[in-house]
């Protein structure tokens, strides 16, 4: 028999496998025609090689599916995740909030039932159905019932009814054949039997340590088919069902994120009691998500497993929050210990959350996350604390030069294209915690839009936006977290939109159109001395005398070839608001002459004042001191700020500053973002120029 010590069993390619067989046959002499295509042996080799290849490929794919890292089929990934006790997240319906008033009602109370329908305005040409997920009951007053803050979720109600029968379904496994299910809206009732309608509400099982034989819980899993399945306890872990029980499941089948932003609803519930209704929008639909992807399952399952349902480390908190079952999704989550705060707050964990499609969480959502998600799994002595992100908005003005002979785009197309590039840059690189505004990436984004762009530059301004208290004087501190450029008037700190104040001269009237600007003041020592005219023929080092309203500043010049090259400030001195530096040649130097210098005064602080244009369109100072600017630390303080109104629909005031550097970083609770709702956030100037 032939001996073959070098057989390649790892081959997956048909021709290589066949060649292996041929190599094997070469070491024997019973069959010699293996190399000729027409021979019978060659026919057999083909069949063998084909079969071997088929099996090898199949085994390779099977081996891939055996590991979470390499699995491709969703069912395999889900199965691996199941070993880590991870249930893939379903689609989550976006939630909107409305106030709902029903007029002309009789009776003392009125109930808005679960799954009452409302139709949204159109989002991308589709009107979405929204439903209530709970029932609400309110007392009526003056024949009207007012339901405040009713939560609506997008989707259509779906219900299933399963008869428990151990013969046909011995595992009591019930498949919910709906690909768009939002499992967070699922309600599971177990009815005694089809004739006995008393029922028990079953809860989703979460912590197995707390389960016993009486626990009315159901378990959720994703099946091989991609649908969710529910199953019940075995009488040890969770109550066991008995034959004849009826399992009633209801949930919302949602379109995921497609309806995000929907607002303005029309009541379509239709019951006679609800004939005369008014719907007032409160919050537009947000916080939806689509069914979890395979990649996300691979990522989240391992993280979830490592947290072991305990929140101890920073990542435990982040995972627990990202996986919440409350139906809230987040763009960014950051967690840090209170000891890192300034001043430190010991024994607290700070959690900063940026919800998807909204700026901040509502107070009730924050409370819910603390009590339902974080508190049950956090260490006993540690108090979780949710803070809102501190948004710093960037306004970008880009100047773009392009060569019109190298492009098919018009100037306005380049303008809108570059704007879109910048907006995309902002979306991908900013908008999260601990991020840095990267000017190189911004310029690349501009440059990469079209090959005709010769060069580009940009200026940025930072904005803080807040809602001033219009009922009582309040002091505000705005932290820009970067040194600010000192500017005078038009180039410096500015507020928008106009504010309305009480007229101090006549308290019966108001003054509208008041804006804030800066006056750099409270100067200290000499920051630097620049050379206006280097002079000539200095034989030895002249002396520099600094005179002004302050004291103590000293400096000496650096002489190169008889001229002053630079000036070194040896002592900045104190309390200067103005200063003049004079150059006096040394006593024995009769030739040196003509040097002149300019003194730059240090200034850490500036004053903010407010102004308006009076009836004759003259700029008039309204209040010469509304607050201060700390240029070095980038802090603006508005003292006892008490406007009566802010002149825009939201009542939001924006204060913009020019940063000293274009490297802007966000910290623990800071998010740098380009406001997608502000049309003036990105402006692009395009200039045609032949290169």
């Amino acid at each position, binding site marked *: 028999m032939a001996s073959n010590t070098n057989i390649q069993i790892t081959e997956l390619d048909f021709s290589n496998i066949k060649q292996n067989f041929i190599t094997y046959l070469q070491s024997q002499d019973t069959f010699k025609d293996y190399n000729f295509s027409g021979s*019978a042996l060659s026919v057999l080799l083909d069949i063998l090689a084909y079969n071997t290849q088929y099996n090898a490929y199949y085994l390779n794919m099977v081996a891939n599916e055996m590991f979470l890292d390499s699995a491709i089929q969703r069912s395999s990934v889900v199965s691996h995740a199941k070993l880590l006790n991870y249930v893939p997240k379903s689609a989550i319906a976006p939630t909107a909030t409305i106030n709902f008033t029903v007029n002309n009602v009789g009776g003392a109370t009125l109930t808005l039932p679960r799954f009452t329908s409302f139709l949204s305005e159109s989002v991308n040409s589709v009107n979405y159905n929204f439903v209530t997920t709970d029932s609400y009951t309110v007392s009526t007053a003056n024949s009207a019932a007012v339901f405040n803050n009713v939560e609506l979720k997008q989707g259509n109600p779906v219900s299933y009814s399963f008869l428990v029968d151990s013969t046909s379904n011995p595992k009591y496994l019930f498949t919910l054949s709906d690909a768009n299910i939002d499992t967070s809206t699922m309600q599971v009732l177990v009815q005694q039997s089809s004739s006995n309608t008393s029922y028990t509400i079953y809860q989703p099982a979460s912590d197995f340590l707390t389960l016993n034989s009486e626990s009315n819980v159901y378990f959720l899993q994703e099946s091989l088919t991609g649908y969710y399945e529910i199953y019940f306890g075995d009488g040890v872990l969770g109550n066991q069902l008995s034959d004849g029980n009826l399992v009633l499941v209801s949930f919302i089948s949602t379109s995921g994120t497609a309806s995000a932003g929907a607002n303005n609803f029309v009541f379509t519930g239709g019951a006679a009691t609800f004939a005369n209704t008014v719907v007032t929008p409160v919050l537009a639909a947000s916080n939806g998500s689509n069914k979890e992807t395979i990649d996300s399952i691979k990522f989240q399952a391992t993280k979830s497993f490592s947290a072991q349902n305990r929140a101890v480390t920073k990542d435990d908190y982040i995972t627990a929050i990202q996986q919440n079952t409350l139906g809230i999704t987040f763009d960014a989550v950051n967690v840090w210990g209170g000891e890192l705060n300034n001043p430190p707050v010991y024994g607290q964990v700070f959690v900063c959350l940026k919800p998807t499609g909204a700026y901040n969480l509502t107070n009730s959502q924050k409370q819910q996350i603390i009590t339902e998600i974080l508190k049950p799994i956090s260490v006993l002595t540690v108090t979780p604390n949710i803070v809102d992100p501190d948004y710093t908005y960037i306004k970008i003005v880009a100047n773009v030069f392009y060569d019109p002979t190298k492009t098919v785009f018009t100037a306005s197309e380049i303008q809108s294209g570059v704007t879109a590039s910048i907006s995309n840059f902002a979306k991908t690189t900013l908008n999260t915690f601990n991020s840095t505004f990267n000017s190189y990436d911004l310029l690349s984004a501009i440059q990469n839009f079209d090959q005709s762009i010769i060069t580009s530059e940009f200026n940025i301004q930072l904005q803080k936006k807040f809602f001033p208290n219009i009922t009582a004087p309040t002091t505000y501190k705005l932290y820009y977290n970067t040194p600010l450029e000192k500017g005078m008037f038009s180039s410096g700190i500015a507020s928008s939109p106009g504010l309305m104040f009480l007229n101090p001269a006549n308290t019966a009237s108001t003054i509208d159109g008041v804006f804030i600007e800066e006056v750099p003041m409270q100067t200290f020592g000499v920051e630097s001395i620049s050379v206006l005219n280097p002079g000539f023929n200095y034989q030895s080092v002249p002396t520099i005398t600094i005179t002004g309203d302050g004291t103590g500043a000293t400096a000496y010049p650096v002489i190169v070839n008889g001229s002053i090259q630079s000036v070194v400030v040896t002592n900045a001195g104190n309390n200067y608001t103005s200063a003049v530096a004079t150059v006096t040649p040394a006593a024995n130097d009769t030739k040196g002459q003509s040097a002149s210098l300019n003194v730059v005064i240090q200034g850490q602080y500036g004053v903010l004042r407010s102004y308006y244009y009076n009836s004759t369109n003259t700029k008039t100072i309204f209040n010469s001191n509304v607050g201060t600017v700390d240029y070095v630390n980038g802090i603006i303080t508005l003292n006892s700020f008490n406007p009566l109104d802010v002149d825009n629909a939201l009542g939001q005031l924006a204060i913009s500053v020019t940063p000293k550097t274009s490297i802007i970083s966000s910290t623990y609770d800071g998010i740098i973002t380009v406001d997608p709702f502000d049309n003036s956030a990105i402006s692009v100037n395009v200039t045609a120029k032949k290169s």
Partner: protein
Amino acid sequence: MATLQKIYSDLDLTFNKVPGTRDVALSYDDQAVIRSVRYLLLTNFYERPFQPSLGSNLNKLLFEPFTNITASLLQNEIINVVTNYEPRVKVDHVNVTADPDHNSYSVYLQFYIGNNSTPTAVNLILQRSR
């Protein structure tokens, strides 16, 4: 007595038994080559895995009009497949004769095996089986 060294040895796809030893019958030398040529002629394109061009198009040509042109195409096809895939053989000549009465072509293929000066012939009747 010295045994003659066999140059070619191949399985026989009929898998007949050798009487006595009950082993699978093999074919040797000329016989092996003739069988190889027959197999090549009877193999259609795309029949062997991953080798789509191995074989000949005879089967398809049998469904073409019964003319001399088809006979000529059959002849070319036979020469091509044997020349391309059977290096042991040098084709001497091929005759394809139409036999309209039996709806068939009779093929006479004469070739030399290796350096053997005696020609070998293969006779085939090509007939549509359906």
